């Protein structure tokens, strides 16, 4: 398999085509664009329009105000933002180290294949199996809990719970690291060996090469990938659902319970307003990501 970790190499330049032929060629992209518009844009449109109407369809700002002022939602936002930021930074740092450790292995070695394929599965699977795996490992009767206890460290006596925010963060990192490996590997592969050789010829140590050459080049790609990780954790809900069955206030949990009318009947539009709030956060993250992506492209080989 051409793995997810391979760098996309530069595409050859398009031949100079006449404008009207280019225009017709653009039709080839239409199915993809339309599909995105209908099945991603459609739901988003109804979230936004629903956020601004009340249960009878009259326009209102009440939902939005409720979603931003009521204490339970503010708490959910604070916890979600904290969880996403912490797991994004941890995942980004460890993911970069892991990706670099794997990259120094031979391209077709079993290690690279295992990490590459496992990253795909784990970044994608998330959710249910992950939650169960962590309950089996670090739950009250979990295997790792038992090992640690026999080694003299009683997690649960010291106040740890797997269905707490800490437990959730520990679980989120499990899918954040693989996603970081997928996202950062192309940028790491873009660090040309010549740069290192040039730095070493000028007398640089490994540390000064990283500090003065590699890290500044990597910085935009690293920051961009960290933002994607943040968005990924902010968006994630399946893991929290399976791990805590909704006992920890997070924004997705609040949306789901508003939609299902667990809290109050007629809260569905507040749920949509919360959805809009999330979309706004994600929008800010995406704008920053795109800006960083343009800076990162300066050093990429395309």
């Amino acid at each position: 398999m051409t793995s997810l970790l391979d760098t996309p190499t530069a595409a050859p330049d398009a031949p100079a085509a006449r404008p009207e032929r280019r225009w017709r060629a653009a039709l080839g992209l239409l199915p993809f664009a339309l599909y995105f518009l209908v099945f991603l844009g459609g739901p988003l449109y109804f979230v936004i329009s629903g956020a601004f109407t009340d249960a009878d369809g009259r326009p209102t700002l009440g939902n939005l105000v409720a979603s931003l002022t009521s204490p339970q939602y503010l708490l959910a936002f604070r916890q979600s933002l904290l969880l996403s930021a912490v797991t994004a930074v941890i995942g980004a740092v460890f993911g970069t180290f892991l990706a670099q450790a794997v990259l120094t292995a031979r391209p077709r070695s079993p290690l690279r294949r295992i990490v590459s394929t496992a990253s795909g599965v784990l970044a994608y699977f998330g959710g249910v199996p992950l939650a169960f795996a962590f309950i089996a490992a670090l739950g009250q009767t979990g295997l790792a809990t038992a090992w640690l206890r026999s080694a003299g460290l009683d997690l649960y006596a010291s106040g740890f719970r797997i269905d707490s925010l800490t437990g959730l963060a520990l679980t989120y990192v499990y899918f954040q690291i693989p996603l970081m490996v997928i996202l950062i590997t192309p940028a790491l592969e873009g660090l040309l060996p010549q740069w290192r050789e040039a730095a070493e010829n000028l007398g640089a140590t490994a540390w000064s090469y990283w500090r003065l050459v590699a890290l500044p080049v990597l910085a935009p790609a690293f920051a961009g990938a960290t933002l994607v990780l943040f968005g990924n954790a902010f968006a994630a809900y399946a893991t929290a659902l399976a791990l805590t069955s909704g006992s920890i206030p997070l924004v997705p949990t609040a949306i789901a319970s508003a939609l299902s009318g667990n809290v109050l009947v007629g809260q569905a539009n507040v749920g949509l307003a919360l959805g809009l709030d999330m979309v706004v956060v994600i929008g800010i993250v995406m704008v920053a990501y795109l800006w960083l992506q343009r800076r990162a492209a300066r050093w990429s080989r395309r």
Partner: protein
Amino acid sequence: MRRRWRVVVLALAALYFLVPLIASAEFSLRSPGGGHGVANYTRIAEDPVLLSALLTSLRIAVLTAVVVLLLVVPTAVWVRLRFPSLAAVLESATILPIVIPPVVMAAGIAFVQANLGGPVFRALFDSSTSALTPFYVILALPFAYRAVDNGLAAIPLRTLVEAARNLGAGMTTALVRVVLPAIRSAVLGAAFLTLALVLGEIVIARILLYTDTFPIAVVEVGRSAAGVSVALSLASLLLTWVLLLAVSFVGTRRRRTP
């Protein structure tokens, strides 16, 4: 010294990533009466609800993979051949489904489901297969696009297509009979990642109240028999991984033989 930090990183990663998997395996092999056995794994064959949920999810997975590939392969080829300048735009667009919360998508869809009638929507929401497949396609697009695009980067695409065209093939023939076989391992990889996604997605299915998919059934059965849940989710995770790993080895072996 360089070797040493590598060993430390890999050892830490192995510890962190393997312990939960080993714990799952051990937990899933516990028998209800004490001791160990495979009873939790064989439950899938005896439980008609689980079995039919598995079939439903596999049907959704196959349909999703087909639609994803129909959308992604021609588009990725077309962008590489005619619109290289758009490659960055498409890559950014495919980040969207990673960061747009499934729960928000589900909220929008649920609104449509509850408030809009008409034959089109009734047909769409008729069954879990017809209602979930179109949206799982969106969720599966990011990694599928990346996998296929990386596959295309590794072959001399322009040369292959031009050679096929010169020999009289139409664009469709060139795509199906020349490009597709050349990137089959990337295509299989994308398909198996789609399988992973469908076997793990519970948010949209749950909010839209389609409870007959496999991941939902696995969570449900966990309320009474946790061991079965752990066993089935671990099995689906490992199955997908083994499939991807197999594809990665098959892909290279064929590429080496001339």
